[in-house]
Structure formats: structure tokens, C-alpha cells
């Protein structure tokens, strides 16, 4: 089949894409914020509630067994998908933000002390900055920052930011502001050489290339289900098993305990240890389904379509020279941040929206980056596996029309 037919095939599975917005066909290019869901995922949610909704684990009945089984099968699917060694290394969280907070509270708060250093990069998402600022406030550790080249890559001497004081490195694999893919494999090695632990924020990586965490050898890795064609409210924290078992608890309550008494309470091992309370069962099942669906599409095809989208976008960026396109690094995902000194990104976004083109404008939760670059933010078009050539054509047309309107 041709690429066109393949995309057409995939687009059919996403009901939301086939609608008019303000009279125009929807062009959804806000995938870095959240991806749309294939029918299979939506159906998995309905059938969960229509057929076997029940609380899990405590189960002593038929429906509870079905729900528990389905939930644990999702854990297996995720383990397999990200290449983890043990199923117990897969912790269900609310999302990327929750996963980072978990590590901040259950590890960093008690393992860091005055003078220790946490290393992030300038382009981190707020979710990968603010929790560490809180840790620094409580522990006296210091937050160090790798600066960026103008193209959004880490400065050439980024390794010099790691030293004997570095106890934790926490970096985004792919920037949600620029689309740049950072050299995470090298970073893991450098961090470990210095005796530091490393957390990888894979929120923007997980739907673009295989993570292979065991091979990568990172200590923790986090991502959100809603950016991987799965439901909202669910995410994953991967952690090395020994490390997970050595960490403090975070949220406490039902399910994560071995024995509760007023004299003293003992806790389960990972993953239960970190999964207090009734889990987001439906979200877990939906994420499992999303991963099955996504794996079925396959990495080969995902790589192919992304390369193609980048190719299409080359002609857009070449045609619309009036805009500044940033993050044009060699290793990038199909995510395009752009701006103009002549008009505000909010104006651009509003006019694109009037033409049915959904992009995001603003600071994209990376304010320190824009402050350093003396900008107020950008407009951002971000692609997923269902975006076709027509989407880029519409983006280009609408950009040109918007610019015409703005310069009047």
C-alpha cells in the first residue's frame, strides 16, 4: 500500500479527526499537548464499563477477576513495550508530572543533602523543574542547568555540568518546545560514571521511537498515556526494581500495605507499594489497548511517516520564510515551533484556529527557555502518525492567510 493509503487507513480509526471546525476541516496539530484516540481505545473503555467494571486486587468475584487480569495484562504490555526487565518495574501514575513528583518525594527528598546537585537542561518542561526546586528548598541541594545552543541542542560541553556533587540528572529526551532529541544514551553513561542517578522524561519521546529502558539503563523513566493515544489520567513510572524497593513510600493508603496496625504499618514491594488507593483501572486498560494498537502499527511505519512529515514540513518552512522556525536540529521529531518579531504568537494561533487548524501557542510550560532567549513563547505545530500531507498544505495556506491579515 502507498503511504497515502496507509495514513487514510489510520485516520479512519480516529473518529475525532473527521469533523468541521468553524466550517473548515479540522487539522489537528496539537499532538505534543495530547494525542487523539483510536476507536479501539475508546471501545476498550466502553466495554470495560459495560462488561467488567469492578474494583481490583481485593477481588473475590468474577468481575473483579476480569478487571484485575486486564489491569495486570496492561502492565505486561507496557513492560514489553518499553523493554523493561521486570513487570514489577512498571508503576502506574497519573501522568508524567505525577511520576516525577513521586521520585522527588520518595527518593530525592530523603537522599539529597546540602551541596548535592541536581542537573536539568534549560529546555525542561516545568514538570521537570518545579519538583526539583521544591526538593532543593527542603534539602539544600542545588539545581544546575545545562544551557542550550540557539538551535535548541545542549551546549557542546554539557558533560562538564556533571561532577562529583551531581547526585541526580533529570532530563527530557525530546523537548516539547523545540522537538530536539537529546543524547540521552550518552547522558545516562555520564551520569552513572559520576555516580549519579538519572531520570528520563520521555513524555515527548514515547510515541516517536522505542525507549528500551533496560538497554538504555536509566534509573527512572516517565511518560503520560494521553500522549500515546491512551486515556487521560494515567501514566507510567519505570524504575529499576532494586531502586524502587529501596525508595520511601509516597501516597499511602489501601492496596499498598502489607499490614496496618496502630502500632506500625508495613508496606508491599513495588509496584503495589506506589499504587495506593483504587487505581485508574479504566485508564490502565485503555493505555494497554493503546499500546497494543500502536505496536500493531509498528515502529517501522511510525518512523517512515515521521520522516515523511518532516519532508513535507521542509516545503512549508521554505515557503513561509516570514516566520522564524526554531529547533531545526538534525535529530528532531516532527514538532515545529515558530514565531515572528512582527506579531504575537497568540494572534497567529487565533487566526489559524479560525481556519480549523489546531496548534498551541504560548510558553508550552518551558518559561525559563523563552526567558533565556528573550521571547514570550512560540506557536507550535506538532505531528502524530495520522497527520497527512493535506494537513501540512492547510497549515501552510492558513499561515499565509493569517500573516496577510496581520500585516494588513
Amino acid at each position, binding site marked *: 500500500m502507498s503511504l497515502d493509503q496507509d495514513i487514510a487507513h489510520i485516520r479512519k480509526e480516529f473518529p475525532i479527526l473527521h469533523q468541521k471546525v468553524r466550517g473548515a476541516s479540522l487539522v489537528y496539530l496539537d499532538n505534543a499537548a495530547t494525542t487523539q484516540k483510536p476507536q479501539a481505545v475508546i471501545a476498550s473503555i466502553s466495554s470495560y464499563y459495560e462488561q467488567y467494571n469492578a474494583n481490583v486486587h481485593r477481588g473475590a468475584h468474577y468481575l473483579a477477576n476480569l478487571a484485575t487480569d486486564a489491569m495486570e495484562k496492561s502492565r505486561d504490555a507496557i513492560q514489553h513495550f518499553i523493554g523493561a526487565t521486570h513487570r514489577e518495574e512498571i508503576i502506574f501514575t497519573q501522568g508524567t508530572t505525577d511520576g516525577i513528583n513521586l521520585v522527588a518525594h520518595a527518593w530525592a527528598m530523603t537522599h539529597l543533602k546540602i551541596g548535592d546537585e541536581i542537573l536539568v537542561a534549560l529546555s525542561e518542561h516545568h514538570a521537570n523543574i518545579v519538583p526539583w526546586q521544591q526538593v532543593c528548598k527542603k534539602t539544600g541541594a542545588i539545581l544546575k542547568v545545562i544551557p542550550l545552543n540557539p538551535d535548541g541542542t545542549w551546549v557542546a560541553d554539557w558533560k562538564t555540568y556533571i561532577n562529583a556533587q551531581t547526585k541526580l540528572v533529570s532530563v527530557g529526551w525530546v523537548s516539547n518546545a523545540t522537538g530536539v532529541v537529546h543524547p540521552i544514551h550518552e547522558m545516562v553513561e555520564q551520569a552513572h560514571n559520576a555516580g549519579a542517578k538519572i531520570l528520563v522524561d520521555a513524555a515527548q519521546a514515547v510515541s516517536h521511537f522505542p525507549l528500551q529502558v533496560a538497554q538504555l539503563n536509566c534509573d527512572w523513566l516517565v511518560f503520560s498515556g494521553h500522549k500515546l493515544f491512551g486515556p487521560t489520567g494515567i501514566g507510567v513510572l519505570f524504575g529499576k526494581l532494586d531502586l524502587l524497593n529501596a525508595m520511601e513510600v509516597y501516597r499511602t493508603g489501601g492496596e499498598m500495605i502489607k499490614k496496618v496496625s496502630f502500632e506500625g504499618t508495613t508496606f508491599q514491594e513495588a509496584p503495589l507499594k506506589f499504587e495506593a488507593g483504587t487505581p485508574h483501572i479504566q485508564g490502565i486498560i485503555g493505555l494497554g489497548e493503546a499500546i497494543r494498537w500502536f505496536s500493531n502499527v509498528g515502529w517501522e511505519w511510525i518512523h517512515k511517516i515521521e520522516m515523511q512529515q518532516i519532508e513535507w514540513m521542509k516545503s512549508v518552512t521554505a515557503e513561509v520564510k516570514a516566520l522564524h522556525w526554531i529547533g531545526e536540529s538534525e535529530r528532531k521529531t516532527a514538532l515545529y515551533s515558530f514565531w515572528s518579531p512582527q506579531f*504575537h504568537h497568540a*494572534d497567529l494561533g487565533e487566526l489559524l484556529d*479560525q481556519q480549523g487548524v489546531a496548534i498551541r501557542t504560548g510558553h508550552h510550560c518551558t518559561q525559563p527557555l523563552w526567558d533565556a532567549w528573550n521571547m514570550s513563547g512560540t506557536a507550535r505545530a506538532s505531528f502524530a502518525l495520522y497527520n497527512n500531507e493535506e494537513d501540512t498544505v492547510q497549515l501552510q495556506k492558513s499561515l499565509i492567510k493569517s500573516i496577510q491579515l496581520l500585516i494588513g
Partner: protein
Amino acid sequence: MSHIAARQEEVIAEFQMFPTWMEKYEYIIELGKELEGFPEQERKEENIISGCQSKVWLTAEKRENGLIHFHADSDAIITKGMVSLMLRIFNDQPGSEIVAADMNFLTTIGLLENLSQTRSNGLAAMIKQIKTYGFLLQ
């Protein structure tokens, strides 16, 4: 009918002349460009209205005639056009009338349905600030 209400009617009539979103936006952008200069020394943090994606500065003074005169600006041109529209309606009116004004004309001109949530939050914040000035400078 108050002056403010009359001006609202005017604006509504004007907007009815533009059947397409493009024409409406063209007009708003034009309004934005025509907005009178904002005093540079007032372009400071404390005059910013929070709640807008783009920045909006707003100041007010009570003039000798007892009426309230606003200055406003924005770093985004569409916002600036909206601001301009607001000022056309509220400028040089008595504080009491500003406070009392009914604001549902925004829906009537068929602009709000085209406006993003952030935009209408921003507008709401702007109107709130205008009315606060109206109240304080009465």
C-alpha cells in the same frame, strides 16, 4: 438609553456588516492598529491585566469633566483591537455608568462564539478591571 448602551448598539450594527470571520478580524486588527499611543512610562508590571495570554496594559484617570479616560495597549494585535473596541464603548463616561453597564453585547456581535476560551477569559478580566476603575474613580 445610556451612552454606553448606545455605543454598544453601534458596535453591534457595525459588526453585522461583516458576515465572515475574516472581515471581522480584519476590522479588529485595523482597530488595533488605530489605538491611540500608550504612555511609555505606564508600560509596567502593575498595569498588566492578568488572565490574558498576551499582555494587556490598562490605566485610567478621572478628567476634569468628571469622566473617566482609559489608556490601554497589548503586545498582540487582535487583543489590541478588542481593547480598542472596549475603550470606544467605555471611554469618557461617568464611573457610575461604567459600573452599571451590561456587557452581553459581546455575545451579540457574534464575536465571542469565535473567540477562544483564553480570549474570553482575558476579555472578562479586562472588563472587570475597567469596572473596578469605574468604581474607584466614581
